[in-house]
């Protein structure tokens, strides 16, 4: 059931695509990456986590990995708690699993830290198993601690705490006192003095309070689950030890004669059944409550937008709170579905979200920069993708985009470097190989129509003022406003830029400039003016009393009739314009009449 929940509901591929997850690891094939990763404490766990995380690329494989991780953690925790004589160990062993489930259902990425937890409980179980059998527990502890420190860095502190607690139970005070001391010293000796890492890293790597996590909101999300996962086994063993010590100090109370209920509960079959029911109830309830549908929808939009699955983007958008990234994806999906000039206002809108320039948010879902690429704003895309590379690491999907950017710019040798890196990844190697072969066959990519199309848009006069100015950048792509317009500066008709420019002006209420563009519709292949523009032109024409030259195109009489009806409703409310909104919303939601009235007029 856990596997099914993870596979079908959580869908680890959504985590793989990163979205706002900035600590998803990079993994490269080959020994250099292996040696580079494992040479620092914690490297083995990091390497294993990086490799296993790549399997999230396939949701089923990712779900299997997470299920195995949770199962192994439960197994080791159970063993440890049983050794600690903790009653109800059978149920309590699932506690770390439940918090891990919360983290995954909430779409936070703490896989390496949970792997650190697993390593701790596994090593603590090994210690508990060998303690008493071996002559030198301290030697075993030291050996395990050293190995664990090298493999899991500061996660070993939790292991040492578990071992100390376990020794408390066995009343071996020397060990109980010595272990925390050794665990405190070892990172300094091994990490700082021998392996030459910083003190911070020596004591916090793979712990939830590492500087790599703290103060970075996207990484701190649900970090409490990691704290709980680390502390629960230790707390369990400690509780077992204290209970043991307490019981030894006080005489065993006389056993009362049990009633029917107690006797029934004491039966293994009943207690097992009840325990299982409780477990399913708690686990299922937690999974249900921990689901973050909003975040899932956000990640789904990112996932679909990256893969240009437009109907799915629009479908997922229905379940998602609107933010800049969502709106950006919706607008792009609408354009590619040929609905931008018609259905723009059926969805929540925010002018700045139409084209996300990266000036305000460096960390963004990188699909927003695909919009820039589609438009021909290659440098803006490059700048933002490079920032993404820093924020998210060398993620294959960012490398792919940067390779494309450089191919468009004719910097094919730089593209080769990105492709070379991509070649070493697990699941994008083939694509990179194909692109490299393509570059070998046609170094300038002159026979690639898509690259040529993008190049036509890219080559235009350079003006630094337009880098973040949406109107200026879109205007530069379509050419100046004044009709009859000359050929666009880009040398080709960039219909997407034209539609985006119209959308931008609609969103910002620049009616006059929308009307001005009406004369250029034919230039961009329109046989009729998009409905939302017709509405804007009507508002402009009636509002200013000016004639608009439509160059042979016309306004749909039905839209004109709607405008009159709309005006009648507004006039009915007189000066109290805001009061008209509910009625207008009922009949005119999705129209530019309503958007303009609501955004620009009602509260004037």
């Amino acid at each position: 059931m856990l596997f099914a929940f993870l596979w079908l509901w959580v869908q680890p591929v959504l985590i793989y695509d990163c979205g706002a997850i900035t600590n998803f690891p990079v993994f490269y094939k080959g020994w250099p990456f292996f040696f580079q990763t494992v040479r620092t404490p914690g490297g083995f766990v990091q390497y294993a986590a990086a490799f296993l995380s790549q399997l999230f690329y396939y949701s089923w494989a990712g779900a299997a990995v997470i299920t195995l991780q949770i199962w192994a953690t439960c197994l080791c925790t159970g063993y440890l708690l049983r050794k600690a004589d903790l009653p109800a160990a059978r149920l309590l062993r699932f506690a770390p699993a439940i918090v891990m489930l919360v983290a995954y259902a909430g779409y936070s990425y703490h896989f390496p830290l949970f792997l650190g937890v697993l390593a701790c409980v596994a090593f603590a179980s090994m210690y508990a198993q060998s303690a008493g059998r071996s002559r030198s527990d301290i030697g075993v502890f030291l050996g395990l601690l050293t190995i664990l420190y090298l493999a899991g860095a500061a996660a070993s502190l939790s292991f040492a705490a578990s071992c100390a607690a376990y020794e408390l139970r066995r009343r071996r005070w020397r060990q109980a006192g010595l272990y925390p001391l050794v665990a405190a010293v070892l990172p300094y000796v091994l990490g700082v003095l021998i392996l030459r890492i910083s003190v911070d890293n020596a004591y916090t790597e793979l712990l939830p309070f590492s500087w790599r996590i703290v103060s970075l909101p996207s990484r701190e999300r649900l970090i409490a689950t990691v704290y709980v996962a680390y502390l629960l086994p230790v707390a369990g063993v400690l509780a077992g030890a204290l209970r043991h010590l307490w019981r030894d100090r006080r005489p065993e109370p006389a056993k009362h004669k049990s009633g029917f209920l107690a006797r029934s509960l004491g039966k293994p079959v009943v207690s097992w059944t009840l325990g299982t029911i409780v477990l399913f109830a708690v686990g299922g309830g937690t999974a249900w409550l921990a689901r973050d549908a909003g975040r899932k929808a956000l990640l789904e939009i990112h996932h679909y937008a990256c893969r240009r699955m437009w109907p799915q983007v629009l479908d997922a958008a229905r379940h998602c709170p609107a933010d800049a990234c969502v709106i950006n994806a919706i607008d792009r999906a609408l354009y590619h579905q040929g609905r931008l000039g018609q259905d723009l206002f059926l969805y929540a809108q925010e002018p700045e979200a139409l084209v996300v320039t990266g000036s305000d948010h460096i960390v963004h879902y990188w699909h927003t920069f695909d919009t820039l690429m589609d438009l021909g704003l290659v440098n803006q895309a490059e700048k933002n993708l490079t920032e993404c590379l820093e924020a998210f690491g060398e993620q294959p999907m960012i490398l792919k985009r940067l390779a494309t950017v450089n191919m468009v710019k004719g910097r094919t040798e730089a593209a080769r470097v990105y492709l070379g890196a991509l070649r070493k990844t697990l699941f994008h190697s083939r694509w990179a190989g194909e692109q490299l072969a393509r570059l070998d066959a046609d170094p300038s990519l002159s026979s690639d129509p898509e690259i040529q199309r993008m190049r036509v848009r890219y080559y235009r006069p350079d003006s630094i003022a337009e880098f973040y100015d949406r109107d200026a950048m879109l205007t530069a792509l379509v050419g100046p406003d004044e009709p009859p317009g000359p050929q666009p500066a880009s040398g080709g008709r960039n219909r997407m830029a034209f539609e985006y420019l119209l959308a931008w002006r609609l969103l910002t209420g620049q009616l006059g400039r929308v009307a001005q563009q009406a004369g250029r519709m034919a230039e961009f292949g329109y046989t009729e003016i998009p409905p939302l523009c017709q509405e804007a032109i009507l508002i402009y024409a009636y509002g200013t009393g000016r004639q608009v030259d439509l160059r042979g195109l016309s306004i749909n009489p039905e839209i004109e009739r709607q405008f009159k009806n709309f005006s009648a409703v507004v006039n009915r409310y007189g000066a109290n314009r805001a009061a008209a909104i509910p009625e207008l919303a009922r009949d005119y939601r999705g129209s530019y009449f309503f958007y303009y009235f609501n955004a620009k007029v009602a509260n004037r």
Partner: protein
Amino acid sequence: MRTRGVRRLPAALTAAAIVAAVCVACLAVSGQGSSIDQATPAGRRPHIEPNYVDAVIPPNIAPLNFRVREQGDRYRVRVVSDRQQPIDLTSRSSTTSIPENQWRQWLLTHRGGQLQFEVFVRNESGWKRFNAFQVTVANEEIDSHLVYRRIHPAHSLWRDMGIYQRDLRTFKESAVLTNDYTKGGCVNCHTFCNNRTDTMLVSSRADTCALIVQDGRVEKVGAKFGYASWHPNGKMVVYTDMLVSLFLHPAAEEVRDVIDLDSLLEYYDTQSKRVGTAPDLAKKDRLETYPTWSPDGRWLYFCSAPLTWTSRNTIPERYDRIQYDLMRIPYDPNRGTWGQAETVVAAKDAGRSILLPRISPDGRWLLVSMCDYGCFPAYRKSSDLYMIDLDAAKRTGRYETRRLAINSDQSESWHSWSSNSRWIAFSSKRDNGLFTRTYLSYVDTNGVVHKPFVLPQEDPTQYDSCLWTYSVPELVVEPVRTTKESLGRVVRGSRRISVQMPITMATPKADTTPTIGVPYQAGRE
């Protein structure tokens, strides 16, 4: 007896089979299966990467491992010279890895001579012999270590970056200071005194401070040190205090561009622990930057451009007309007094912006970067290296700039000299136009700079997928011995030397951020 013989038979057969298999494998590996002596000549040199063909190399450089970019299933590289028997390196892969000990021996034997490499490639039509190529081994060694900054081609955000050092005699690279130690903060502007590491400076933006290392002692100075240069006596470091702003191009090949909206030169006296400046180093109507000392410590060379704008918040409209002159100012180290600045080469005469002056330790050559405009040659494709003969200038009174033949059509910048003035290291984007790599070049006594070669790596294919840029390569004669832990501890520590700035800027406006639409934001997630 017979039974024992029968028992031994399978073992004997197995042993024979193993021996045969090993022999076959050896033959296969060594390519003896077909005759290399009958190799057909290809009639041209092989394509190799990195391109070491005709390079002049130091006698103490790490092995020049390379990859043969020719199709084949067996590769053999034969090293030929008049001073030794030919040596063959055979491989199934196109990568040639030269054993370090053998390489060292070759260099020792061929110091001042040439090494000749013959490449043989076997494909389905048999062995093919390519024309031999040579590398010349110079007599003069290069400084043993190179210190550089390693960072992604970032704009205003970084995740992993640091200053690293590479032992040029081997492939060992180690961190001097990474931003792990500064909790993600930027580290840059590493500067050494007289190519030695016992006196050095590292700037950190994590705590806006500079780390001064002298004789193993590390101090944190609470000031932002830009491009810096140590006085040869090691008691003073001159640095740029600038209001730098990054701006971006929507339709140029290089997106990034940099402008100093204001700048001046200051110096830090390591003994009095004070900051000072001189009138000619901090003119209100000029932008002064890139200081560098002459080896005798009597002249400070620097770059200077007119400051024609008043706003410190916006990129001036004519940013692409800003060109820097090369200037110098006399300094009396005994009295600690500055003279009057004079123009060495005017930008209007050169027609280009003159940046990054670096004088060879023997005082003979002055190497500069020149580009079409601006103050940051690494972002200008037009940036090339130019040499000025200072001895000739002394005689004639004219500073002639000579464009070096080693320039490419991409940016060359961040050059530094070896302590013996015979080698330069510089950053170049010649390979791909985006990722900066370090190149090394031999400079002969006539100032001729020979064909550069890329910093060799153990894996010659490393640069094919290397997303790092290697900038500001500084040659030093010894490794940086101050540990990164010590540097990191001081960066993070609260102890710092507070200094009083003599002046704030040409226009003292505190707390204003230069913007062009958006501020230059660094270090945000």
